[in-house]
Every structure is written in C-alpha cells, then in structure tokens.
C-alpha cells in the first residue's frame, strides 16, 4: 500500500490524499472498486473522493477543504477496505466467469 499526501496545491488551498492498494489480480481490484464506490460521501460539501482501478491496483484520490473532514473520510474508507479484504480472504477467490 502506498500513500502520498501533499499540501503544495497552494493555489486551490485544498488538501489532497491518494492511496494505492495492490490486489492479487485485476479481477479482485475491480471487485473492490465496485464494492466500495456505490455509496456517496455522507457529507455534502468540502470533500471529494475518486476511485478507480488500473491493472491489479485500486487507486483512491481525495480532495478536501479541511484535514478534519479528510481524516474521517479516509479512516472510514480504510475500515471498509479492510472489510472487503477480509471478505475476499474468507469467501474468495472469485469464481471464473
């Protein structure tokens, strides 16, 4: 898992956070993407989150106005990600389609 955090986007004054999660295959990365992306952020403004899958990795990018809001969103995402990983471990591997 690789993370970067940069606050150098001074013009916008926005915080950014990005996360890269490797999976055994692109299939698992796509399953995680589809399990984690349907629900929108509960908060209306001040934060946006973009999920995508490239190859066997899931990539998530946050943009937020405040560190406090960013922390809550990232924390809750990591909880959900861990639940997906545990579910895959226990009830996977995915069947061949």
């Amino acid at each position, binding site marked *: 898992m690789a993370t970067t955090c940069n606050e150098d986007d001074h013009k916008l004054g926005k915080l950014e956070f990005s996360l890269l999660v490797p999976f055994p295959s692109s299939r698992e990365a796509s*399953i*995680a993407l*589809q*399990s*984690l*992306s*349907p*629900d*929108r952020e*509960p908060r209306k403004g001040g934060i946006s989150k973009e999920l995508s899958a490239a190859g066997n990795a899931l990539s998530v990018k946050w943009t937020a106005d405040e560190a406090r809001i960013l922390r809550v969103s990232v924390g809750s995402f990591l*909880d*959900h990600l861990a*639940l*997906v990983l*545990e*579910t*895959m471990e*226990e*009830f*996977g*591997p*995915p*069947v061949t*389609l």
Partner: protein
Amino acid sequence: MTVVIGFEGSANKIGVGIVRDGVVLSNPRRTYITPPGQGFLPSETAKHHRSVILTVLREALQQAGLKPADIDCVAYTKGPGMGAPLVTVAIVARTVAQLWGKPLLGVNHCIGHIEMGRLVTHANNPTVLYVSGGNTQVIAYSERRYRIFGETIDIAVGNCLDRFARVIKISNDPSPGYNIEQMAKRGKEYVELPYTVKGMDVSFSGILSYIEEAAHKMLGTGQCTAEDLCFSLQETLFAMLVEITERAMAHCNSQEVLIVGGVGCNLRLQEMMGVMCKERGARLFATDESFCIDNGAMIAQAGWEMFRSGHVTELSDSWITQRYRTDEVEVTWRD
C-alpha cells in the same frame, strides 16, 4: 428451485438468512446490546456488525448446508435505516455477490417484514400493522403498491418504548421492549397518559415527554411503580395502534390483520388486536420473535419474490439510503 441469501443490518440486529422456495434454510442473527440507559448509535452499531458479519455469514451457509455455488441471488437491505450499519452490510453483500458471480438485489426493509409475515402466516391480503423501533405504519396492498394508510407523525412506537426504558434504566437485554412487557404484567394502577390519534396517524413524542416527567415525579414520591408506568404506556400506545388498524380495515373492507416488526412480538399488543379482530369477525396473523424482529431471512424472502419477478440491482445502483418509503417500491410479484 431458487435460493436467495439475505443480509440485514439496518438497526442493531445483524442477520443473514437463506430461503429456498418458501423454506427458511437458515437465519442466524446477532444483536448489539447497549448498557441500561443508553441507545445504540450509528458508528458503534456499524462496528458491532462489522465484527460479526463474516461469522454470521459462515453460520448461515453451514446451517443451510449450502455452498456459495448453490445460491442464485444475493439480497441486502438498501434502506431505510441507519447509514453506517447499512453500508457495512451492503459492502459485504456486494463483495460476495461478485466473488460468487451472482446477481445482487437491494431490498426495502419494510417490504421484507411484510413478505416474511405473509410467508410465515399464510395471510392472503392482510391489512398490515408494521411496528418497530424505527417504523410505525398501517399498510394495505392496492394496485402494485403497499400503500401507507396511517403512520407516526414523529417517533416510532418502538422508539417511544425504548426511550422510556432508558429513562427508568430498564435493561436492553434481550430488548427493552421485552422487559417493559414483562414489567407491565405486574402493573396494577393505570396512570392516565395523553392519547394522540390524529385521523389515520398517530403521535408518540408527546406521550414520551409526558411519561418521562411523570416518572421523575411519581416514582420519587411513590405515587406509582415503574411497573404501573410500563403497563399504562403499553395500554395507551397499543390502544392507539388498534384504533388506526381498525379504521384502515373498515376503509379497505379487510378481514385480515398481520402484525410485523419488532414490537409485533409483544403478546399484549397481539391480545388487544385479537379482541378487535374478534369483534369484527376478522382474523389476526402474527409471528414470533424469530421472524418479527429484524432478520436476514425476511430480506431473502422479499428478495426471492423480487428476483423471481425479474428484479436485479446493478452494482452502480446499489447505494444504500436512510430514507426509503414502503410505497416507493412497485410490487411486481402480486396481482
């Protein structure tokens, strides 16, 4: 044969049930129980569900003696309910549906209660009283919708009972409502409370405020006992529910009543409803706590009906929703 697995976790119960053509193969469940005086909050409830959901899922499969390959559809509660617990359960449902290569199906929680009640009791076309910690509705089926004839205009009847239990520190184990029911049996004096039926609707928040104040005043001075208050509260709330149910029956010319939802396993409510039904020559249908209280099989059963009539939910449309009214769902599986 159609086998549907259902995931439920919209409040403080987490359940996974498997239904095959009207037969409940398994229905394990766990309840998040808080200390006396405390209610359950969204994030703690989600944490509880998260810690046990995979164990409950394993139990459901084991007890049914099925492998994932035997399942035809994965149903889960789309709403209504608390956001954080709903998301936790939906995430697992989405993940296993994809791992197993099965279609996913989002189910309205209220529809789950109604369809489970119909399956268990064989009620044909009942007027439904749906009473729980989060919902209070009188429902009748007409032209492809479960239509809401009357409902609470503020808090749910179960919420009124739960919050009263907190005020006088009644245990939440196994549930505050069950403990109030037991204490009410020992009540001797009826304490008069406001009675707030408004046409087809009911209101409970004023009754709660009134009895909270009465509890502080009267219990301290020994004017009445906690048992008397439990008894008085039940009698008042349930009389209101029986009244609006009877009125809905008269409107619909209905000769059947089905009680569903967690408060529906209260035997005093069933008894009072039974008296009304007898006077009208109607039949009462109710279920015990295994199916009245939130469970996975009810989501599987509603999912079974929906799946058989052609519904599925695309992953991109599988978001949960805290508000989801019973009459939003088109009932394509009934005439």
